[in-house]
């Protein structure tokens, strides 16, 4: 098993603000090709390449663009979502810092394809230096004629605004992000209408993850056939996996989709667990994905196989927990974060998150009862079933799966009181 460097091929190869260096490696070829091709053919290529969103939901990118491009009149917006607040995920930062021009190129091509004149990049508030870098990058891009009126001599005018997120996890959700730019509280909304129909200021809006947009220039430069050779038939290309938790070597690794199994990935790139004890459980898709037991780690690294194993690939943030950690502690740690992040838009999440946190704290302190665990299950299931946005539907999943996979841990935590 080895890394396939496609998106990260130029990361760190040139100074971040050096456009000439980027061009020397072959950059901007995709943008020039895209400007010559015209919007319809770009969307057609992306559709043929079978690119799906890398932000967690996994929505196909081509059809999403086609929906917005179909609206011919008036203002349209494009937002690059670099909020990346998910626990255990730090892949976008590698691209934003290491190869920013490629991300910018992706944004420009996407904006040309959908006909958006105003674009935003919404960067996580904790990435201070990244925001500074991008502000300088925009100035450089304006000088080079990549942003502003008539970019590279074409008829297209574009503007990019760098927005720094203001410290809420929920702004990673597309409607919450849109709300914040509209000067409202960051809160999700009922769907439909989707952002592609009524997004920012009521206009059609495309919201794409950084990694998704970084794929775009690669596809146009390398060609669809070459791109589809990588990965599996339903999921072509590569994916950036962030590996963290109890491993010897954490980091971001780019792998061909389906090139190996989860266990191989953890053992070869993470070099095994930190203390050498066996793996207890793994979250393959960031902090809100279900836990996988040790025996289900033989699944291949594709969204489909991980789903069949009982979890989801999500943002591809692999978090490893080693033997000797109690499930109660892991879940408590997760809820320390999610417990304060509900936006309050819908009741099941607003109330559920607080109640679940209370119960888990109670169990953690050894004061829980069997009824508490039953209540935890019920609230969790209700939350997953009726919440409006991804956060409410996802944060109970690790708790529910922990209750399923490691009932002995919870029972042990309860038994202490009854003695």
């Amino acid at each position, binding site marked *: 098993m080895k890394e396939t460097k496609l998106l990260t091929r130029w990361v760190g190869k040139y100074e971040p603000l050096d456009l000439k260096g980027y061009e020397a490696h072959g950059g901007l070829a995709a943008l020039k090709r895209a400007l010559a091709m015209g919007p319809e053919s770009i969307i057609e290529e992306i559709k043929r390449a079978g690119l799906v969103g890398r932000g967690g939901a996994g929505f196909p990118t081509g059809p999403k663009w086609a929906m917005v491009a179909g609206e011919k009149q008036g203002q349209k917006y494009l937002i690059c979502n670099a909020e990346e607040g998910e626990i255990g995920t730090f892949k976008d930062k590698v691209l934003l810092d290491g190869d920013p021009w490629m991300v910018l190129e992706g944004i420009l091509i996407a904006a040309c394809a959908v006909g958006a004149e105003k674009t935003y990049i919404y960067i996580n508030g904790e990435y201070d230096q990244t925001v500074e870098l991008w502000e300088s990058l925009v100035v450089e891009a304006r000088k080079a004629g990549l942003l502003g009126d008539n970019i590279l001599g074409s008829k297209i005018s574009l503007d990019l605004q760098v927005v720094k997120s*203001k*410290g*809420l996890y929920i702004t990673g959700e597309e409607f919450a992000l849109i709300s914040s730019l*509209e000067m409202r*509280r*960051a809160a999700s909304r009922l769907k439909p209408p989707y952002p592609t129909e009524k997004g920012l200021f009521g206009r059609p809006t495309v919201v794409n993850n950084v990694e998704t947009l970084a794929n775009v220039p690669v596809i146009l430069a390398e060609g669809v056939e070459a791109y589809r050779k990588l990965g599996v038939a339903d999921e072509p290309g590569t994916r950036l996996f962030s590996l963290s938790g109890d491993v010897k070597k954490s980091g971001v690794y780019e792998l061909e989709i389906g090139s190996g199994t989860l266990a191989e990935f953890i053992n070869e790139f993470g070099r095994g667990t930190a203390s050498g004890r066996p793996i207890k459980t793994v979250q393959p898709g960031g902090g809100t994905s279900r836990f996988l037991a040790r025996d289900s780690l033989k699944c291949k690294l594709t969204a489909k196989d991980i789903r069949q194993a009982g979890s989801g690939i999500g943002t591809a943030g692999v978090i490893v927990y080693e033997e000797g950690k109690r499930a109660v502690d892991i879940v408590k740690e997760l809820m320390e974060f999610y417990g304060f992040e509900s936006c309050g838009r819908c009741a099941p999440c607003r109330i559920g998150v607080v109640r679940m946190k209370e119960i888990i704290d109670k169990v953690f302190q050894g004061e829980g009862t069997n009824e508490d665990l039953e209540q935890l299950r019920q609230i969790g299931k209700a939350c997953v079933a009726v919440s409006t946005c991804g956060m409410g539907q996802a944060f109970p999943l690790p708790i529910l799966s922990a209750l399923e996979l490691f009932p002995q841990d919870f029972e042990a935590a309860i038994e202490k009181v009854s003695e």
Partner: protein
Amino acid sequence: MKTFNIQTYKNLIKEVGGLTVENSFLFLGKVQETFGCVPREVVRDVAMKTGFSEARIYGALTSYRDFKVGRE
């Protein structure tokens, strides 16, 4: 961090290329970072220039962790 003064504030507006509905969130972020808070007169000024109500801006800002709104 600077104390609020009108010249720095005007320069900030110039930096973002004029205050509009579309960049108001970004602009207030810059105000917060420059002065350590968003003074109430700024809220009023942004409300006047963008057409958002003062209540909407105040309500939005106070819901974010990294914003502080100055006292009257």
